[in-house]
């Protein structure tokens, strides 16, 4: 029977059923960070259980780490509760023998940037992490899912996840994105069409000409936000772009193993006549740069549009949600998106902090300077290696010359667990993934955009259409 890519990976990892009827899925790699692992390690210790397979785990601290004073290591963390959490990860990794990229290791970074960068993420793998943006790794045709802490502990102890198979959702994207429009705009547009629950219970496979034309980094951006459409996992089939990306990375197979792996990876595509439970078709060439105006990623418009009018919405629940959102965001119905004034700029996160994202933002700046009304413009690379690469290419200097702050790697202002946060009432153009109330700081107002749009907004002081900028 014809299979989808998801069906194939599922089948290759299906262990069987427990006595109580629950299905077990084998997990090849668990990524760990400091926030969702301590209770899991504690649970193991209390029950005196070992890790099922130590080498199937890889850790790095990312959520809490400060993006300044990194040369001080642990003592650069001034928040005592955050410090305890980062130290706990360190102790647990040492106690259990888990490989960790420590706080001052050049390979440290956001776990979803680090995995692919190291070649720890491989096509056809099953990957879990106690973080919903684990879907990022699906760009390499790995079935990667965010899980809760009880599941983290369960995978540590059993190498399996208790799970029912999801349904298949095909998102077919024809045409090509126009210059200035990126994978971030594409995925925001998709979420706008589907809604934040549109793909609940499904695994998304992004398909079509527009997807094949995307770089691996752009595919990661796309898969990263699958969860924002409700899907636990997003996937892109293997092609030359995938194989070329993985080749030569530190954890990638070598020699004969490589050839054997590649031969298998080439099969990781949906069969031509595979049946999907749901489909969405769209044309990439019709997509404009996107900006979110509300407090859910589905509340999004083209930059050339206006903030919608809740009174004009036919669905009562949707209208009420929009009213609450506009009140929180302090925006007026029918206000032009380009009239939204900004206070801070954040370029970073597991969505958009890879080298290509930084190149794209730096290209827009072209000698410009951060506008006077912008209190702070941050660039936070996704990993120490991305940071080093950007410095080598002169991108860091472009940012600093333009008035951006150039920081060390971590999750940073995407969720404001470290000191990088929005002040109350401040508007931020952010390349992150969630515009929820208070996400980036208490009372903060987040607008999700691409790196190029964030850079243009930094220079203009408000949103501008990057297609016409400069």
């Amino acid at each position: 029977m014809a299979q989808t890519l998801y069906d194939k990976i599922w089948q290759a990892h299906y262990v069987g059923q427990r006595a109580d009827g629950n299905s077990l899925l084998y997990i090849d790699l668990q990524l760990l960070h400091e926030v969702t692992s301590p209770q899991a390690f504690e649970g193991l210790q209390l029950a005196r259980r070992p890790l099922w397979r130590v080498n199937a785990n890889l850790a790095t601290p990312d959520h809490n780490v400060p993006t300044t004073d990194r040369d001080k290591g642990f003592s650069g963390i001034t928040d005592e509760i955050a410090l305890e959490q980062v130290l706990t990860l360190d102790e647990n990794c040492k106690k259990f023998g888990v490989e960790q990229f420590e706080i001052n290791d050049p390979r440290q970074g956001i776990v979803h940037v680090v995995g692919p960068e190291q070649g720890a993420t491989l096509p056809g793998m099953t990957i879990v992490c106690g973080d919903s943006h684990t879907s990022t790794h699906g760009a390499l045709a790995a079935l990667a899912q965010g899980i809760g802490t009880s599941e983290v502990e369960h995978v540590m102890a059993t190498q399996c996840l208790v799970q029912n198979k999801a349904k298949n959702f095909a998102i077919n994207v024809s045409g090509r994105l126009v210059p200035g429009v990126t994978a971030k705009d594409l995925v925001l547009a998709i979420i706008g069409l589907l809604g934040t629950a549109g793909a609940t219970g499904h695994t998304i496979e992004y398909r079509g000409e527009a997807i094949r034309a995307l770089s691996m980094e752009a595919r990661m951006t796309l898969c990263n936000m699958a969860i924002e459409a409700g899907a636990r996992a997003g996937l892109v089939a293997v092609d030359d772009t995938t194989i070329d990306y993985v080749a030569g990375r530190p954890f990638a197979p070598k020699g004969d193993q490589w050839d054997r792996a590649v031969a298998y990876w080439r099969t990781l595509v949906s069969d031509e006549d595979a049946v999907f439970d749901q489909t969405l078709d769209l044309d990439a060439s019709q997509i404009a740069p996107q900006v979110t105006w509300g407090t859910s990623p589905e509340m999004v418009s083209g930059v050339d549009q206006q903030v919608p009018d809740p009174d004009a919405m036919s669905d009562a629940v949707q209208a009420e949600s929009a009213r609450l959102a506009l009140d929180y965001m302090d925006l007026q119905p029918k206000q032009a998106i380009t009239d939204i004034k900004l206070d801070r700029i954040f370029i970073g996160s597991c969505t958009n902090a890879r080298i290509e994202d930084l190149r794209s933002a730096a290209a827009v700046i072209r000698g410009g300077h951060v506008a006077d009304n912008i209190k702070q413009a941050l660039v936070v690379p996704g990993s120490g290696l991305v940071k080093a690469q950007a410095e080598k290419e002169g991108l860091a200097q472009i940012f600093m010359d333009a008035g951006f702050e150039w920081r060390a790697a971590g999750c940073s202002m995407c969720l404001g667990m470290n000191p990088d946060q929005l002040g109350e009432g401040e508007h931020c153009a952010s390349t992150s993934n969630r515009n929820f109330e208070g996400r980036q700081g208490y009372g903060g107002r987040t607008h999700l955009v691409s790196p190029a749009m964030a850079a243009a907004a930094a220079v203009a002081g408000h949103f501008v259409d990057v297609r016409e900028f400069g």
Partner: protein
Amino acid sequence: MQAFTTLEGFAAPLDRANVDTDQIIPKQYLKSIKRTGFGDYLFDAWRFTDPGRMGMTPNERSLNREFVLNQPEYQGASVLLARDNFGCGSSREHAVWALQEYGFRAVIAPSFADIFFGNCFKNGVLPIALDAAIVDELFSQVADGLELCIDLAAQTVTVLGSEKVFEFTVDPALKQKMLSGMDDIDLTLAESALIEHFETGHRERQPWLFRD
């Protein structure tokens, strides 16, 4: 895990769609390395008008009297009545821990986000998906006091004081797990031989996945 068999209690309403786990428990409390201590911070930015910090008690905070859960009639509620896509966003299990510690043992909504839904079943909190029309009906009655009896074995929600009984669906395997309250890891480790057998074959098929 605490088993879930039956629950009798009254409901409190949260009339918003797409309530995300950042709202259920904000980030500053995720720095804890414990599984407990989150109940005081449930819906923190809505329950209080001041920004909170880990370690603060509700007495030190400024209460938002307009927020529904702060209203006297909903104190002690054990069922949360919610809207579509409840629990979307971050995978943080702290959201379920906070709901449970606050006193909620069940959440009724038209739909739930996947990861939150799964996390509930790991903690003995029962998420019940009912048709939107039924949820609407329950919302319309909640202000007058909505006492419910939830019976997981029978898969029913009964409105006490009326003859209304709503049936709900639940995955049979998940249901069994909730009713027994048995440790999930023990249940899986009982299948160790099955896992080892799979692992041996998997290693032969894809040796590059094993660094050991």
